[in-house]
């Protein structure tokens, strides 16, 4: 008969003793699975909506507000970072995206075809050196040489950040 009150006491005590995962660890876990969008530090842009990001990566937008020509930097096909961007931002398949770029070049809407690089280091260096460049990296591959921009007002360590890498 006294068993159930004892259980309740046990539960309450347990709940009090269990320490929630520290916020820093939660953020670290989120960072591990997020895809950061990076631009050159000179670029005044701080935030893009997902719709705007899509127009940028589909080549429908050619210049930044400061007049710099947008240069897209992509990682090689098959890498999880690129797969995430193609699926969640461009919302199409890899072959459809390539076809779209080709048609964009033909119509003149895409000024320059995207630059494809093999390594995160290459992407980071490219964005560092080209003022109008925009690319993407895992947050742990980003350093102070480039700038992470917000997407829909969120940074990669926010719970609501919309770009999550799927391996």
């Amino acid at each position, binding site marked *: 008969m006294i068993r159930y009150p004892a259980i309740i006491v046990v539960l309450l005590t347990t709940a009090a003793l269990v320490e929630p995962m520290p916020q820093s660890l939660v953020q670290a876990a989120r960072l591990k699975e997020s895809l950061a969008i990076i631009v050159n530090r000179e670029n005044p842009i701080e935030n893009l909506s997902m719709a705007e990001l899509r127009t940028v990566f589909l080549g429908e937008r050619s*210049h930044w507000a400061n007049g710099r020509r947008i240069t897209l930097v992509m990682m090689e096909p098959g890498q999880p970072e690129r797969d995430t961007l193609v699926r969640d931002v461009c919302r199409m398949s890899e072959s459809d995206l390539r076809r779209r770029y080709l048609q964009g070049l033909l119509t003149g809407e895409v000024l320059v075809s995207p630059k494809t*690089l093999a390594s995160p280091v290459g992407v980071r260096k490219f964005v560092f*050196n080209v*003022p109008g460049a925009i690319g993407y990296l895992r947050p742990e591959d980003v350093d102070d040489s480039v700038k992470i921009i917000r997407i829909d007002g969120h940074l990669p360590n926010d719970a609501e950040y919309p770009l999550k890498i799927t391996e």
Partner: protein
Amino acid sequence: MGFSRGLLIHSVRRRVLWLALAGILISPNLMQAQSGQTVTVDQATMQALLKRIDQLEARVQQLEAAQHPAAPAPASVEARQQQSAESPTHGPSQAAGQEHEPEPTEHAEAERMDVSKTLLRIRGFGDVNLHGDNYHPAGQPGDKTAFTLGQLNLFVTSDISDKFKFLSEIVFEAGPDNIYGVTRGTENTFGVDVERYLLTYSQNEYFNLSAGRYHTAIGYYNTAFHHSTWLQTTTGRPLLFAFEDQGGILPIHNVGVEAYGSIPSGSLGLHYVAEVGNGRESRSPITDEPVQNIVDDSNGKAINFELFARPTKVPGLQFGFSMYRDKLVPETLPIGVRETILSAHVVYSTPNFEWLNEALVVRHTPEGGHTYETPGWYSQISKRFGAYRPYFRYQYINASPNEPIFPDIALRAGPSAGLRYDASESVALKLQYDFTSLRNQHSVQGLEAQVGFTF
């Protein structure tokens, strides 16, 4: 539905709670496992694991860098600029100690002036066809079933500088031209046309200026597909947008200047195109090149304005209208003819679904005379199922028998149905059936197989 789902979730939660309680009862050591000491151990383990992951990732980066040393010699200025952008001499590792990093565009400019390297990038498009129909005009031999070489298109671009770029479509094309119903040239010879030849200055998102030979911004199709059958769903362009040398009625090409860009309009996504050019050759009938590349038959210039929207909330949707004005001076008429082309389009195009709708009217008004209106429209729909894409198109053009500029058009209307199969990312096979009704003639049925490709 939502209520049931809520009940289900509630029920599941209750069951989970009871299972947790049962677990506690069964496992007397659980309290100890939940103690603060155990959590501390977990944190330490987690931090150690994260640190280990960082170390491993750093190692992977080192290996990747070793595996991908300097890229091979790039073939374009863009690649050269980008290679220099990747160069460790400008790398982030040096950035911390440098207040003034060298401007990469200066380096790129020097690269562009290196005459030992080409600035050109070339992409090719082509198609080969097998076509047969029952067209048999009175007193003339009918068409024969034949293999036909389509256009071989060399699409050349050059990234001249940060603000300037060049593009061109150099097309090798077999067969005679057919301008206003007059055949020019011989059946099996090849000719070369520079179909587009355009230098573009890009100031910003809102203002781009091009000079040269371009595709007139009338409607959607003419500036969406240009000279590539591979990009098109069907085997050919709609009759409305047929090229001038294939009997088309519109000024598909123009030589002059055009300004274009987006208009600040938020999610509506407005764009404009404004063009001034020589317009189309207007002598009727003619046997000369219909595009006035060098000389114009009048001092007046053709003007065109297009406004269209691409709402960001509905990706793939585009709608707009255009107005084209010119004055034609046909040799067969003692007076000039005012030409006005009004067009409107609503298009929804995504990788898996396409629905194109365009309508226009061409108005020709001889000075002091009657206005002849030639309406035309088409609707095309297709849906992709894996590598297959069935499609259907209905098209219509109806010109008056007395139309002063289009003596050979009359009525052309009918459906087309076909299937496109993408054999690879760069090769498409198409099979299309066409039925075309003609005024005072037997209707024409045709069947065409095509392989279109890009290279």
